[in-house]
């Protein structure tokens, strides 16, 4: 394998917490424009993998390379985010004491410096970009509502909106449909596919219906390394995967 030409490249990444191996020699490669679904039982290392990519956790060994030539291991979260990796959390995390609009405003791509922020103005261009985001996530009517007052599903959507506002090259989406109604789930799948047209995406999800709806290549994690990958139908037929899931 080589990092060249890939959008995300993980090679032999290991992380351990007090002797517990959260990631064990994990390798993964993602091509530009690809959408990948990651599944696996609890403790398989899905979230830790996200943490490693976004700079929250530093791996003990291994390489993490973004967009062919950026070594992510040396960078902190902010630098990685500025490179163009956006992340949505498992538990929807929005700024509860800000309005929906301000949530998007803060997420918009652009200057992140302290003094820039001190003097920055909400220009017309910014307002327009926010409007276009509202069209995508359909929360325009709630723009002045505090994010903390949104329903669970609305928060999920707002967070996706915040991701889009960052305009990243790669989106990491952790359980986007947890707690959503069926209808919302379907819409979310549509939204992700829409997003995938212009961005690379990694989705971590438990919900098999949803993964099936996405209809993309699936990677199964188990005990910190890749157990199987390929189309959903293929991996779900895999002996070892069945064993892991059913826990024989």
């Amino acid at each position, binding site marked *: 394998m080589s990092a060249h030409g890939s959008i995300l490249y993980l090679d032999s990444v290991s992380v351990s*917490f*007090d002797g*517990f191996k*959260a990631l064990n020699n994990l390798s993964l490669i993602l091509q530009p424009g690809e959408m990948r679904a990651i599944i696996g039982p609890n403790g398989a290392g899905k*979230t*830790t993998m996200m*943490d490693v990519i976004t700079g929250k956790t530093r791996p003990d060994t291994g390489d993490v390379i973004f967009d062919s030539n950026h070594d992510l291991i040396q960078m902190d979260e902010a630098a990685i985010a500025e490179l163009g990796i956006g992340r949505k959390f498992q538990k929807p995390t929005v700024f509860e004491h800000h309005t929906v609009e301000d949530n998007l405003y803060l997420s918009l791509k652009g200057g992140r410096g302290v003094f820039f922020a001190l003097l920055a103005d909400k220009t017309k261009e910014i307002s327009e970009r926010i409007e276009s985001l509202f069209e995508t996530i359909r929360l325009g009517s709630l723009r002045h509502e505090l994010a903390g007052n949104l329903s669970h599903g609305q928060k999920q959507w707002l967070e996706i909106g915040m991701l889009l506002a960052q305009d990243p090259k790669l989106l990491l989406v952790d359980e986007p449909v947890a707690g959503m109604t069926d209808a919302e789930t379907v819409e979310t799948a549509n939204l992700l596919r829409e997003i995938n047209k212009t961005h690379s995406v990694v989705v971590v999800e438990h919900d098999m219906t949803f993964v099936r709806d996405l209809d993309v290549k699936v990677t199964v994690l188990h005990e910190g390394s890749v157990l199987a990958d390929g189309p959903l139908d293929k991996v779900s037929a895999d002996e070892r995967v069945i064993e892991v899931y059913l826990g024989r």
Partner: protein
Amino acid sequence: MKAFIRFSIALLSLFFILGTSQGMAAEDPALKEKISALAEGSYSDRAQAIQSVAATGDDRAVPALEALGEGLLFIVKSDKSVVIGLDEGATVETFDPVTGDSLGSVPSGAVDKIKVNNRLRREIRSALGALTLLSDDPKVRLAAAGAIFKSKDSDSIELLDTAIAKETVESVKLAMQEARAAAVLNSSRDMAEKQAAVALMADRGNQSALAVLLNAKGSAEGPLLVDIDNAIAAIEKSLAIWDLAQNAWYGVSLGSVLLLAAIGLAITFGVMGVINMAHGEMVMLGAYTTFVVQDIIRTSMPGIFDYSLLIALPLAFLVSGIVGIIIERGVIRWLYGRPLETLLATWGIALLLQQTVRSIFGPTNREVGTPDFLAGAFKLGELTITYNRLAIVIFSLLVLAVLMLVLRKTSFGLRMRAVTQNRRMANSMGIKTNWVDAMTFGLGSGIAGIAGVALSQIDNVSPNLGQSYIIDSFLVVVFGGVGNLWGTLVGAMTLGVANKFLEPFAGAVLGKIILLVFIILFIQKRPRGMFALKGRAVES
């Protein structure tokens, strides 16, 4: 005060032992007269009077001299006679200073206490040394040898020679020889004898030998001076190593005080996450409980004073624990999930508790006595180890061990851990989380109360007691790593030992400042303390 009474009783019994061993002493007007002279004249006159009593070599003078040293010798105003007396408030029970016969009790106004100062006490000590060197009791002889060692009285050399010849107990004999050496070095004896004495001192090799040598150095010359210098150098070298060990011990002992102060906080803050600013006041309550227990014992059953701390321990645990539970039920339970607000509320509670104690017990220090078995020190090689510090070190480790046992092995400990790790889950499994919260807080507070019992032995018992420990306690817990009792132990010991090794170089103030800066920097390196829990669970 209590020790004083105890002493008087001991003195009187000594009296009777001596009295019987000598047979009923006949009236001896010469001795009587010499004893009467103890009461008169200036301090220097009386110092001479003591010497002249000692010069009689008559050990019947021992009780009178001891009484004088302890302030129990009185002069009867009416006839200027000298008596031994036991002050019983309004009256004084009097005894003949030589025979020990009771002379009945007189009103306290009828007698005057004979005053002594430090110089007279020294004279008395050396006189007693000379008078008791031939006593039947090896302990008394040992003490006598020690007294002569200190006084370096060159007049006692002959007496020591006699005693050494008669002595059968090895250790006492050695002590006498050392005393003799000290006396020789302080005399005008010849060079050879002095050199032998120096050799003996070099063998003894401790602080007091060093003192003797340093003292002798001033008047020494020629080969003796060389010998003394060599001996001093050798002793100082070995003492330097002991010094290191002594510092380490001081560090451990300070560490155990920190541990005791912090250990309750490791529960309320470390496990429950309550920023308990009233923690110090729980310690204070424990100390005051000890005071109350001792006060009751003093007035109603002084016989069991030595057990007062043992009695105080469970009571202090209960008092602080119950106050803790009341605080938890009354205030803190409304504030879970808002840790910084517990800080404010408990700060208010701390003020309330301080003022309550101030109103009840007054603002001044209260006396908490030390039971006999915790007073004093013993020597381990050249280490001086005081009993109370040793007791605190052992006690703190014991408390930690018991606490760990409770947390690990009891069903309460299991529930407690369940609640702190996942409250909702624990609740749904039928654990009464409210009850567990209250009990946990009570446990932490109760342990703080126990710490108060121990700290009352070395510190002020005043309403400000708690304030002086609160910052150190938080630093220990944070430095060690929140939620980890081992961390608290290692943290306390590290800070204690580091402090004590810094102190000789930097001084007490600067040493502490350096340590604080070190903690600040250390937290940068390990933002969650020494024994931090790792992993994702911590983040959320």
